[in-house]
């Protein structure tokens, strides 16, 4: 047998089903939003599993093609501190897809059955056979997923060999590995083939990548191991040269992590605001619920109920609602978090993570769903319990003290507004606490849309601006038929300058370096460069310094920030040929190379890399039109070919369009991250407006009794809904600006720099439309229902 009080607690859920459903939905939305906190940890957990499974490398050396026998490989694998080691050959070439050519990275696997590092697992089909007459390979799983290349198992594709001939390659299966899958996500499709197939296609022998995992990952042990491996390689081939600096990757780093980490800061901000929204929403909902039952509390007190006993009964109802909401919220939150991880995993690293549940998020959901719900009810319960019995019994659930405060009187004087608007505004002011809470939730939602719109536009603008800075209109690069670097000397430059429509042709050099141990790129540029630098301190290098190949450098602001380097300091730059010291003469504010790059005179960089001539030129055209540039490109290629130079070209406006498309994806991701917050805010608005109508059915009946028709009643309530929505929107502008600054600050920190927020108007418009549409739409159903009721029924409504 259950006591009457216990039954009351349960029956509250069924007695007012609509309100109970709205309350649970509102709380569940708030709880689901908390699962954003779980996303980074779920992602890391999924990645950690893959890193372990794939045995991602921790050290990478890039020799220029070294032949290693199986016995020599075994000896290298047995070196001290080496947990695993593999050699790999790779080849960049063209893939024929229909009538189009795509660049493709052909990645060799020494032995599919015995892989110790960056394991390529066969996800479908079978591994290609080694030493086979027919060329076979696997298509990377990310190729199809990203749309880079849709060829599947059983297809045959044409691959261009280094000698210019086209070779058929039969796809036997689908492979995947984190290291090369992330390359597909960023760049071009990947095919996995036996290493000897690479050698056959590329026209060279041996490995161009030596990948290793370590037992002891400490920097000192890693450096020592690299020296040992290098010595081992030197013993195999004393003439071995390296095409790049050694890459060290700490165990907790994974391919694509840097990009993902930049989003993590967004997650924390969103999750924090989501938690705040959740608390406000839960607090408002429970306060409304309790306040509406002040009369019931009065009745219970009148028949002998004591405060604590009554409070327990209401708390039980609150906990039942909170419990139901927690279950629903967790279910939705798990879905939300896992979908987000799946999307971001695919986006950044080409990962397809399995489903996981975060204990942290479950704990937080329980804390908010049960704890905050109960705590939020207490103040309202305490207030209601203190109301004298007589007063409580007279309460009709509607604010009866309207008119006492200045705001009420001020609104009464706003007679310049249409009558429904006047009534709507005053209705909104009846429950000031609830209206403010609702407006706050709308403000959070609007602020999110506005902030994320502003942040994404800012980042896109910076990205576009940065893209415009490099390459001029056409990048011309000398390349041999085997894909090697071909120098373009002074004669080549003169040939370019003679082409009609060429405004400038400037040499360019680029080198992968470690500057004060920070992995970055060094650009070699002329003193009169077309690169539109923006110096915050110091100066660009002079013509004399360029001519004398001085060791001077302008560094990016993010690099300066991370290293503490400033004008006059010396930066130690490790290149593939060794260590070079440069004097810092300037700091550039542009975000090229994420602001971490350094700029040196082009002849200096060529000398350091032991090249006589550059192999790349930036060409700018006299015409700014795309068609003009494309025609110029044709003439340029023709002229250089006629002069005996084998070149490739890249049209910068085509590449920029691809970058723009990429940027749009990032905008979409950022906006999508804000959706849970928007949902919480909108659900809060829906709940408040629907409750307003439900609890004023008696008032609607009175209006009906006085002659009001349905559309007149709708006009009044629409005005109230719009008043709340607009109030929230206005406040949301301020919230959005502050939130945008905060988010951009975190993102700037991840780039070791700062960005100025652009605050355009269109997100404000989007947010206004969204809020108004929701406010108007949500009122339709409850108002229609209320207007259809006979006034007598509504007057009896409790």
């Amino acid at each position: 047998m259950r006591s009457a009080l216990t039954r009351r607690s349960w029956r509250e859920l069924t007695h007012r089903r609509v309100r109970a459903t709205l309350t649970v939905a509102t709380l569940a939305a708030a709880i689901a939003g908390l699962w954003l906190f779980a996303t980074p940890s779920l992602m890391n957990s999924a990645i950690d599993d893959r890193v372990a499974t794939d045995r991602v490398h921790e050290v990478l050396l890039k020799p220029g093609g070294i032949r290693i026998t199986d016995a020599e490989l075994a000896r290298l694998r047995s070196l001290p501190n080496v947990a695993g080691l593999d050699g790999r050959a790779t080849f960049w070439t063209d893939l024929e897809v229909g009538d189009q050519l795509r660049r493709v990275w052909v990645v060799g696997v020494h032995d599919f059955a015995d892989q110790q590092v960056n394991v390529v697992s066969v996800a479908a089909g079978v591994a290609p056979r080694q030493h086979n007459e027919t060329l076979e390979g696997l298509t990377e799983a990310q190729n199809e997923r990203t749309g880079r290349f849709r060829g599947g198992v059983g297809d045959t594709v044409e691959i261009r060999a280094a000698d210019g001939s086209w070779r058929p390659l039969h796809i036997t299966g689908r492979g995947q590995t984190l290291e090369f899958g992330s390359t597909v996500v960023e760049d071009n499709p990947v095919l996995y083939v036996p290493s000897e197939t690479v050698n056959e296609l590329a026209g060279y022998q041996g490995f161009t990548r030596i990948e290793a995992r370590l037992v002891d990952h400490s920097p000192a042990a890693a450096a020592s191991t690299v020296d040992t491996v290098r010595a081992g390689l030197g013993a195999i081939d004393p003439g071995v040269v390296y095409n790049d600096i050694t890459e060290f990757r700490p165990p907790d780093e994974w391919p694509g992590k840097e990009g993902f980490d930049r989003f993590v800061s967004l997650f924390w901000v969103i999750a924090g605001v989501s938690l705040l929204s959740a608390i406000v929403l839960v607090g408002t909902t429970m306060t409304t619920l309790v306040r509406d039952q002040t009369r019931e509390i009065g009745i219970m007190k009148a028949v002998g109920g004591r405060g604590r006993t009554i409070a327990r009964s209401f708390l039980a109802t609150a906990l039942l609602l909170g419990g139901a909401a927690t279950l629903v919220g967790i279910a939705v939150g798990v879905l939300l978090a896992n979908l987000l991880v799946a999307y971001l995993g695919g986006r950044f690293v080409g990962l397809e993570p399995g489903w996981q549940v975060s204990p942290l998020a479950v704990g937080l959901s329980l804390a908010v769903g049960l704890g905050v719900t109960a705590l939020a009810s207490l103040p309202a319960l305490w207030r209601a319990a203190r109301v004298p019995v007589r007063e409580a019994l007279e309460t009709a659930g509607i604010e009866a003290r309207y008119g006492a405060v200045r705001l009420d009187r001020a609104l009464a004087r706003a007679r310049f507004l249409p009558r429904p608007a006047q009534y709507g505004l005053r209705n909104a002011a009846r429950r000031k606490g609830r209206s403010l809470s609702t407006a706050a939730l709308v403000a959070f939602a609007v602020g999110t849309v506005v902030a994320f719109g502003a942040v994404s536009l800012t980042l896109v603008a910076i990205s576009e601006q940065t893209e415009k800075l490099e390459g001029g209109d056409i990048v011309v690069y000398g390349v041999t038929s085997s894909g090697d670097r071909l120098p373009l000397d002074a004669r080549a430059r003169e040939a370019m300058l003679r082409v009609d429509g060429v405004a400038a042709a400037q040499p360019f050099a680029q080198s992968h370096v470690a500057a004060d141990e920070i992995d970055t790129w060094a650009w070699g540029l002329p003193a009169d460069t077309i690169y539109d630098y923006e110096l915050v301190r110091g100066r660009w290098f002079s013509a004399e310094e360029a001519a004398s190949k001085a060791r001077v450098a302008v560094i990016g602001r993010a690099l300066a920030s991370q290293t503490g380097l400033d004008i006059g300091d010396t930066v130690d730059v490790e290149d593939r040929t060794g260590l070079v010291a440069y004097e810092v003469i300037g700091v550039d504010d542009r975000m090229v190379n994420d602001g971490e790059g350094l700029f040196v005179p082009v002849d200096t960089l060529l000398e350091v890399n032991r090249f006589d001539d550059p192999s790349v030129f930036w060409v700018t055209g006299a015409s700014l039109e795309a068609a003009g540039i494309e025609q110029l490109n044709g003439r340029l290629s023709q002229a250089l070919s006629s002069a005996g130079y084998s070149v490739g070209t890249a049209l910068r406006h085509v590449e920029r369009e691809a970058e723009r498309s990429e940027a749009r994806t990032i905008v979409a991701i950022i906006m999508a991250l804000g959706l849970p917050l928007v949902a919480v805010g909108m659900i809060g608005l829906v709940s408040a407006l629907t409750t307003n109508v439900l609890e004023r059915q008696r008032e609607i009946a009175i209006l009906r009794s006085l002659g009001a028709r349905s559309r007149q009643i709708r006009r009044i309530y629409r005005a109230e809904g719009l008043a709340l929505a607009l109030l929230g929107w206005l406040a949301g502008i301020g919230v959005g600006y502050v939130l945008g600054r905060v988010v951009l600050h975190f993102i700037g920190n991840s780039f070791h720099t700062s960005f100025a927020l652009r605050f355009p108007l269109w997100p404000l418009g989007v947010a206004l439309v969204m809020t108004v549409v929701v406010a108007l739409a949500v009122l339709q159903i409850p108002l229609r229902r209320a207007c259809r009721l006979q006034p007598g029924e509504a007057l009896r409504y409790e």
Partner: protein
Amino acid sequence: MRLQTDTAPEGRLDALVDVQAAPLVHLEEVWKVYRAGRVEFPALRGVDLSVDQGEMLAIVGPSGSGKSTILNVMTGIDRATKGGVTVAGRPLGGMSENELAEWRGATVGIVFQFFQLLPTLTALENVMLPLDFAGRGRVAERTDLARERLELVGLGDKVDRFPSELSGGEQQRTAIARALACDPLLLVADEPTGNLDTATAVETLETIGRVNEAGTTVVFVTHDQAVSARADRVVEIRDGVVVDSSP
């Protein structure tokens, strides 16, 4: 008291002429059954009742007898389950909710037991409300009309007060002024003095009496014999059935 203007709603004067011979209100074999879940409760069981033009009728009876239901049915606030309800020549049965609302605004004035003033509107605005809904004249004319009604009930100096700033009696008088705003043919009042002190109750009854003397038909519900004594006729109802009707 009734405002006779050139802008009186069309059809109403005709209706007046038509109903001068017939009763203003006629209930014929009216049943009202309330349903709550599995339970049915017949509040009215075959009620026959007529109210003549200009009459003041009191409906008395114990709690739960169906007094308020009769008022609800004759004003269209509730629909009869069975039987016919005709007011000022119009049968209410076939009208939609919107039509009923419009008809009520033009024909009936209702004074509720607990006043039911809108808390966010001043006294003047509460009285203007029915005029707004009916779209009577311009806003300035409605304002003047409403002010007149409030002066009539002695609240000319409190037009800008909110209901929370008025006493119970003042709220009741505001409610009466609101009920008279559109110059109705029929004024119904549910326990008009039920929540008032004696002095205020007397004042209220006198106001209602003046309204009736000016020609408005009045029907009110009360359980107070002293109040019912002021009526031209008293109808007693018990268990949903009219048991007595005496002048």
